[in-house]
């Protein structure tokens, strides 16, 4: 994926999940893909002030956490995108978003869906939810962001696949040097149960 198309994909994603971050969507995705300190800079949440600065405190961000959520959920997303499940999940998400817009009080959580065939969707939601929680995004807001993220990912499977491919290439590039570009959450998952993660990817 060229830098330009990666930027375009990130801008399109930001437009629906974090409109206030569109201006820096390209910078964000490039920093994320670059790995190392560039990526970790996106997630720093030091709450101490700097002498000569304005004040101590962290600015609320969404896009970096969405990207990390997608990266963590790559083993779930990649097989889903190339299967018929993709269309089913997209319909469910769209319906859910419509219900939320029309009657937010009556909208139901996707957690209540049966495992067959929705288990990958529920796992993807759980992964994104964990990441947004780390970014201190309020629960109600996070749920909406997750649905929009899934919709954007499923509507542009090629862009998403290429983003994940780029990360995978970077990961293999770094594995030769003994470093790893997998996010902490993903490393943890592999460590805890490699087979479980593998099965999720089926």
């Amino acid at each position: 994926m060229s830098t330009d198309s990666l930027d375009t994909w990130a801008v399109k994603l930001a437009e629906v999940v974090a409109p206030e971050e569109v201006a820096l969507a390209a910078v964000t995705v490039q920093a994320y893909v670059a790995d190392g300190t560039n990526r970790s800079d996106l997630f720093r949440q030091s709450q101490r002030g700097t002498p000569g600065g304005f004040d101590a405190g962290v600015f609320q961000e969404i896009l970096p956490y969405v990207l990390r959520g997608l990266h963590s959920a790559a083993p779930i997303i990649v097989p889903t995108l190339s299967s018929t499940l993709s269309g089913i999940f997209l319909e469910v998400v769209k319906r859910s978003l419509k219900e939320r817009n029309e009657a937010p009080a009556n909208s139901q959580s996707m957690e209540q869906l049966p495992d067959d065939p929705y288990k990958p969707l529920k796992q993807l939601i759980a992964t994104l939810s964990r990441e947004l929680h780390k970014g201190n995004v309020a629960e109600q807001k996070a749920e909406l962001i997750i649905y929009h993220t899934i919709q954007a990912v499923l509507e542009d499977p090629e862009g998403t696949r290429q983003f994940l491919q780029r990360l995978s290439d970077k990961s293999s590039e770094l594995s030769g040097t003994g470093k790893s570009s997998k996010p902490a959450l993903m490393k943890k998952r592999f460590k805890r149960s490699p087979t479980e993660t593998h099965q999720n990817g089926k």
Partner: protein
Amino acid sequence: MASRNTIQRKSVLPPWLWLWLLFSLFLTFTNIDVRQSLIDFLTGTIVANSAHAENLTRFPWLYRIMNLVDLWPPMLFVLGALTALTPQLRAKYLEKRWRLKGDLSNLPPDLVAFVRHAAPDLQIKTNLRRSDRQAFIYPLRYRKAAIAIFRPIVLLWYNERKRAEAKAILLHEIAHYQHGDALVVGEGSFLDIGLNWWLPIFLVFGLIPMIFLWAEQSINFVQSSTGSGNLSPTLLHELIDALTIFLPGWLLILIEEILQTISLILLPLLAFWCIELNADQAVLSTLHSGEDIIRALAQFKAPSSWQDRLFALATHPPRSLRRWIARNAGKREGIWLLLMSFPLAAFSLLLGVVPLFIVQVSQESVFHNHTDLLQSLAVDIGSILVNLAPLWGVTAIILLVWPLVNSFWMRIFAGPEEIRRESQFVDWTNYRIYYFSACLTALLALWGCALYVLVQIKL
């Protein structure tokens, strides 16, 4: 009235941080206790001269390293002052630490134009990946500074509804530059380090060696008593001593160290708060309202843990105080508070007397009566106020002339383009408050001098 876009170059407050830095250096180099601790640490003179120490312990060097607890604050003050003398080094360190680059391609052109209009000689550096910082100012050379701009500023700028907040933050930083704060804010990093490492330093170099030496002495004593067959009474005696003398003694030392550290830190802390409030005042002068500052503060989630809140206070005043000052901009009470806060904060050094007083009360039998005790307390307080008299004297003079020299001070730190553009001015706004604040501070200085004379006569 100036339009909302006219940048007001104004410094309501004198440069208290500069004054504190000079005062603390003066005190550090003239303080006999600091010099004694340094000589003792480097040469071990006191330990070597003390025949008792050699006889009582096999580890006399422990006495030497215990001096580090007393040397820690002055050492940080001196290192902080050195950052003002070596701006190039500080710039290199900060640019590496925060990964700042001069590439402005991702900055909105109108943001760059805004900064250039407000401060033509200020360089712009960025790191658009970090969102836990907004912007800060740092020196490049003596008359050259840079503003580091982080992600939140750009995101706020692109958001039409929040651009005013981004402008307020940028104006706040530009005011720091204009006020000459860039060269001395490095001291704040050392204040932060001082707070961060105070407890480990006290434990490792103070309390643990002290307990170790006491344990060694007790073991020696018990071993020497074993030969005489009186082990049980000796152990009991040591235990009673530990509970009634040593343990309260250690607690007293801990309280003394905490209070002395607080007394040393409060004045620079307030000097830091003053530069922040002063920068806010400059924003208010330009925007004619404190609302943008208040909204800008609300954009950032305040630290959640008490440690982070405490450390945040080392560099910035509480948000509630900033909001109050912003709302009371231009009102008499707000200016009074701003002008008198630094001279009055000097009283915090009196906290250092409390532990001395506790020691004296605990040894009351040494004194013949309460009059002696109170007299001793008066001498302790007097000696601190005497030390403060020069600071108050200088503060009073600065307050008196500040409206007259305000613009000259800012010219010292301005770049060539800014000097060409600006003219000197005398700011007579609220001069009466400056005048009366100077008089009050002068009275404090006279009080200190009078005490000095009284103490001399008494002695």
